[in-house]
């Protein structure tokens, strides 16, 4: 039991242990966070983007596509092309309105979306988790469709026409798909084709 002052070396191991532990912790911390500094924006929305692409394709290429061709572009007695022939990228404006109204028929003033109609629409667009016979809302993705139409009176400000049965989430990933279409309206006075961008968002 010699006095403490005679052999202070006994404490070095403890100091060393504490020091090296702190050093190693700092070291591991730095190495763990350096890769994240280079890739800050990591999004897990692969699946959502694929669902949004699929829904936009279904809308633009089958659900909304124009097959009427009864526009007054036919002058001079040429017969109209029979229904069924579809032109790519040209959708029928009336069908889009029907889509909006179909799921809001109960409320003529606003857009009330009855849950049954919304689920049917999600099945048509392929926004389910593979459960085509389900009627539960949680088995389907949420979606929002926006049609931004060109307005000749205000060329810089497009007119947005939305189908939005679900509210946007505050923190979740959102998949998006944009398609450019021409809206065909046979009753329009001037040009019967209007430019529009259809955006489908899925979460």
């Amino acid at each position, binding site marked *: 039991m010699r006095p403490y002052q005679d052999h202070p*070396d006994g404490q*070095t*191991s403890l100091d*060393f*242990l504490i020091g*090296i532990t702190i050093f*190693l912790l700092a*070291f*591991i911390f730095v*190495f763990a966070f350096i*890769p994240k500094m*280079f*890739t800050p*924006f*990591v*999004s897990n929305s*692969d699946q959502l*983007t694929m669902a949004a*692409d699929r829904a936009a394709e279904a809308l*633009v290429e089958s659900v909304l596509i124009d097959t009427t*061709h009864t*526009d007054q*572009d*036919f*002058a*001079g007695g*040429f017969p109209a*092309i029979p229904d069924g022939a579809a*032109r*790519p*990228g*040209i959708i029928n404006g009336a069908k889009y309105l029907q889509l909006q109204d179909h799921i809001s028929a109960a409320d003529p003033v606003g857009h009330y979306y009855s849950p049954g109609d919304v689920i049917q629409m999600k099945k048509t667009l392929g926004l389910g988790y593979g459960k085509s016979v389900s009627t539960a809302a949680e088995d389907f993705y949420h979606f929002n469709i926006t049609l931004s139409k*060109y307005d000749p009176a205000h*060329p*810089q400000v*497009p007119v947005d026409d939305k189908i939005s049965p679900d509210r946007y989430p505050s923190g979740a990933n959102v998949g*998006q*798909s*944009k*398609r*450019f*279409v*021409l809206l*065909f309206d046979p009753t329009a006075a*001037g*040009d*019967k*084709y209007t*430019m529009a*961008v259809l955006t489908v968002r899925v979460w």
Partner: protein
Amino acid sequence: MRGDNRGQVLTIEALVATFILFIVLAVVVEATSVTPLTTSFTNQHVKYELQNMGQDILASLDGAPVAGTNLDKAPSRLEQSVSTWLQGSYTLYQAGDTPPTKGDWYTYDGVQFFKSATTSAYHEAQTPLEQALTFAFSPNGIAYNVEVRYPDVDANGNVAVYSAKMIWNGDPSDNCVTVSRYVALHDVDATDPANTVNLPTGSFLISDFSPTTSLHNVVEVRLTLWVM
């Protein structure tokens, strides 16, 4: 044990040194190298969106007839855009402006006008292609170039493919997307002389490779898109 108290330190040092070596090796092997060519998911998705929009613009404009024409024999709006550029028949913005030249190329000023690169002619977005591009892309900070590739006969009599610029907004970035579509251009038909879309007789940048028929040429319209 006197004078032997360094034995512990050597061992611990060795252990820590091995540990650090091992950690460095593991980090180096596992780390993803981030180079300029590495595509993050966000980047790739933007390219898919641009590709979809570009293809849609070319396809839908090629499927819609010129406004107010017979659907049976009408040129498509895409053909109208190429033909207007070839003929230089843009409407002047104001009386007294320099008229546009045939086959000249234009730069979008970011606000309203397409300005000629070689003269002081300028015009607002007029052809369906220009209108679609300024509607879909310009407000979103996406730049575009439009080039037209056409076959022609060179000095030795061999057929070669040439490229002409229609709209040029600078060299694209590394993350650009190019979409293209083939368009058939036609001569003015004797049965439809009021059709100003088709090409009258005369010389144009893209020559008539079938003088005996109403087909003028088949060109490839290439649209390059990139995020500014």
